[in-house]
């Protein structure tokens, strides 16, 4: 598997808080990587540093062989890195179609409005929102907004797609739909980093999982390796439980 992105000792401090500490990680082309960790572990911060929302305090981010550590968000958007937000971020007054068209128009240089709109319609079709195209984005339900967020990200023709808790707040039927979509996107050749709390989703969709805890990477491996890892159990359930679990095993 060829390398798409490489993080080398990436750190980020917020005042006295070390949010990310020497995170080194390679993401292969076509991979579906699960990024998990307890609340506050630094998962979203890592995405923010990669996309340029926050500057890295140290370390480098390499994407397709190019150093992108210092790029701003609109620049990372244009080289093929897309993300969905944990808290959905539509443009409320624009129609659903315009929301997606905007993403297609501004992230791909040299695309006209007409072509962007056509491509946006395809994405809406794909995520199952075609019927809502002319409604204002503010009128959508949460599950629909999550799918709109996905359509926006896809309209950017990403090479690397960060999905930040796309399933949070959805019921089990909706989660099932979302998982199908994710599998289809991955099947289309897009590299995906899935940030997720629902272990069922991570275990079934991801080919590899990395675990963040207190800003540091504590595990990296196949799903079954990671859930059996001593450090991971400790991070999620506490030291005491980890000891009993290991002793019992």
């Amino acid at each position, binding site marked *: 598997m060829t390398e798409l992105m490489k993080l080398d000792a990436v750190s980020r401090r917020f005042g006295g808080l070390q949010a990310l500490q020497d995170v080194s990680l390679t993401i292969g082309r076509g991979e579906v990587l699960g990024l998990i960790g307890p609340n506050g572990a630094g998962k979203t911060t890592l995405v923010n540093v990669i996309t340029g929302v926050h500057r890295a305090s140290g370390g480098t981010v390499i994407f397709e062989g190019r150093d992108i550590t210092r790029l*701003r968000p609109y620049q990372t*958007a244009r080289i093929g890195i897309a*993300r969905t937000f944990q808290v959905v971020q*539509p443009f409320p007054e624009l129609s659903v179609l315009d929301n997606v068209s905007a993403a297609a128009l*501004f992230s791909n240089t040299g695309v006209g409005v007409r072509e962007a709109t056509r491509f946006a319609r395809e994405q809406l079709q794909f995520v199952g929102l075609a019927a809502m195209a002319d409604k204002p984005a503010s009128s959508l339900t949460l599950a629909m907004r999550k799918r709109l967020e996905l359509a926006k990200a896809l309209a950017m023709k990403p090479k690397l797609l960060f999905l930040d808790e796309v399933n949070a707040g959805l019921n089990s039927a909706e989660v099932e739909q979302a998982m199908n979509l994710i599998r289809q996107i991955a099947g289309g050749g897009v590299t995906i980093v899935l940030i997720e709390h629902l272990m069922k989703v991570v275990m079934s969709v991801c080919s590899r999982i990395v675990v963040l805890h207190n800003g540091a990477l504590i595990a990296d491996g196949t799903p079954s390796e990671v859930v059996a890892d001593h450090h991971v159990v400790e991070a999620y359930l506490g030291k005491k439980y980890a000891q009993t679990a290991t002793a019992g095993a």
Partner: protein
Amino acid sequence: MKLGRDLLLFGLVLLLGTLPFFGEAYTLRLGTFACMYAIMAVSWNVIGGLAGYPSFATAAFFGLGAYAGGVLLAKGAALLLALAFAGALAFGGAMLLGAVLLRLRGHYFAIASLAVGEVLRELTNTATNLTGGGMGLNIPLGAMTGGILGEATFHFLAMWGLLLLALAVVVWIERSKLGFGLACIRQNESAADMIGVNATLYKSLAFAFSGVFVAMAGTLYAAWVHYIEPPDVYDILFAVKPIVMALLGGLGSTVGAVLGAFVFLGIEEVVWRNYLQVHTGVLGFLVVVLLLFLPHGLVSIGRRLRTGRAPA
């Protein structure tokens, strides 16, 4: 529907252009002010209405244009050259300043933009050699034929032409990629960043376009009144009035901004004539009443009537 609105807008303004055929000096003076106010309101709408950044820099652009153009005119330059210079200076200055100021949001940006005018006013006051400082600047009467009426007609047509130009550019912005990007920025700036909108560039462009025509109107104003002084052209009311006009007409709407400017001038003129002592007080009261009962501006009247007629 949007096209109909734009046509209505241009029709209205074109109609105003027939004023010299039956106007006397007073109506022409009023017409010139109407165009000047409309230029200010339409310009403010680009940064305040489209991009969502409440700018108080209109007075700064106006004063800058009045002095930049006025000084050139006083040195004997042609009016077109003075206009071009004032416009270019305001555009360039706003691009540079915008990249810094537009990092601030909401109230912080409003206050910072207010300071720009004050700084420029002090600079103008101090640069006595160039601007005449507190003594003001005399702009020589151009060789004009036709007496008072001829001159009034010329200045009216010049301001009216500038309004047409400003409208054409602003309507183009609304329909362009720039306008689309500004709408995204207004609604959610971090999401706009994430889909590849270069927010800093777009906001700076919006700020520059909100300044360029106001500065040119300042130059025309200086040529029109022949004498300018800092408290006159950097008047804080020039920063506040365009905002009131835009709100009166309907925030974010160009037709609304033009309507708002005309209605505002009408109210101002009537109130000023009848209540000389307390006219600003009465004017303020009227504005508050209008905004209370028409929070979405004059352009919402049509919509209201339609929904009122429709069965509930």
